[in-house]
């Protein structure tokens, strides 16, 4: 059997594919940024001595880390739909990715926080800083430096996981590829090009992350 590649159709559909790639990038960046903010709060809550804070954070982390991302997307889309809460595919996938990103990053951040000596906190307090200022100016900047690489790994993972949007008919790169190949039956061609696009997106994100880190993180740690 001999497969004959036909690339023309793929090039004709390039605008749609690029749009899909853009949606993927947009989706994963949003899921990452919101996930980071929530994870910082969850990590602080989880370290709290009071169970009112630590318990909900623990439950979030345990569910996010121990159930398939596929289920989380289904829950957000079909599950909430059954309860009468109808999210668009974009919002459903975004929510699920935020949920799982926050869950994984919480543990990363918690490790980061704990690696910073408590004496940094006391030294900052002794200068008259409020607790919020201590976190904002002293603890968070150091924490982010230490967990920067695990955090970018999570970012890449989240980009790849966003391809599950295909399951709820979302128009991100995988969903778009699926739709286009089913119209033309040039399955292999479309998926090869989509794979290359994923590769470029993740490399682009990693490169940006490394440039940002060089700009942001000047001191030693």
């Amino acid at each position, binding site marked *: 059997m001999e497969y004959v590649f036909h690339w023309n159709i793929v090039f004709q559909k390039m605008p749609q594919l690029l749009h899909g790639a853009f949606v993927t990038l947009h989706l994963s960046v949003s899921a990452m940024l919101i996930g980071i903010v929530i994870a910082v709060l969850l990590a602080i809550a989880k370290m709290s001595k009071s169970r009112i804070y630590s318990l909900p954070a623990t439950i979030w982390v345990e569910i996010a880390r121990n159930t398939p991302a596929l289920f989380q997307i289904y829950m957000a889309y079909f599950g909430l739909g059954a309860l009468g809460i109808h999210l668009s595919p974009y919002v459903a996938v975004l929510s699920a990715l935020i949920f799982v990103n926050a869950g994984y990053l919480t543990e990363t951040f918690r490790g980061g926080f704990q690696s910073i000596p408590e004496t940094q906190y006391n030294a900052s307090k*002794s*200068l008259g800083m409020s607790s919020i200022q201590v976190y904002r100016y002293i603890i968070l900047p150091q924490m982010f430096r230490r967990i920067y690489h695990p955090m970018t790994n999570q970012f890449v993972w989240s980009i790849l996981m966003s391809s599950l949007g295909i399951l709820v008919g979302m128009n991100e790169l995988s969903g778009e590829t699926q739709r286009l190949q089913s119209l033309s039956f040039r399955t292999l061609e479309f998926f090869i090009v989509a794979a290359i696009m994923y590769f470029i997106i993740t490399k682009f994100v990693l490169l940006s992350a490394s440039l940002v880190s060089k700009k942001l993180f*000047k*001191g*030693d740690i």
Partner: protein
Amino acid sequence: MIKIQGVYKSFDELEVLKGVDLDVKKGEVISVIGGSGSGKSTLLYCINGIEKIQQGNIIVDEIDVHAKGTNRDNLRQRLGMVFQQFNSFPHLTVLENASLAPRIVKKLKKKEAIEIAKEELNNVGLSDKFDEYPTRMSGGQQQRLAIARALAMKPEYMLFDEVTSALDPELVGEVLDTLRMLSDAGMTMICVTHEIAFAREVSDKIAFFHQGIIEELGTPEQVISNPQKETTQKFLSKVLH
């Protein structure tokens, strides 16, 4: 003036301060000496309100540190503290280390904060290190930075917790010189220290701390040269050989 009256402090079951009384007048230098684990650091943490107390009062310039309504963040601007660990902020340059708190706590303009920070850094001999990151400096330099950083807040009092204990012996001198300079300038200081010779030289009073109370308090002449209590004598003979 700092008034410490009948202070008790415990960590869960462990009673660390068992009725401490001490007055520190403006301009006085008081050195606190005593064995490790006797509660010296804890006392300093209670004075600036980082640790809570169970009983007694600590009054700083008429402000009750541990009273319910006290704004302790504000109060700490009056009480500089330097620790045994260097505690430089590793992600900030030397100049940023010293100008951050004046800028964000006192809300000074950036230029003004930097002016003050530079002046304090000059005073401790770090004028050539403004743009250096602290982790690239020696322990002695980092400790002088910590002193300048605290002084940049223009505190009324300075609390020093064994600031030379983590230093290599050859670096102790430069930090003690800085403390001497401060005491000459009239700063009110409480120094927890193991440097008995230094304590004798700069202090108006020495407090010997033992198992959570001040066993003996007096001039260096009294406490170091003529200790009355047996525990003081034992401690001194151990540290002076």
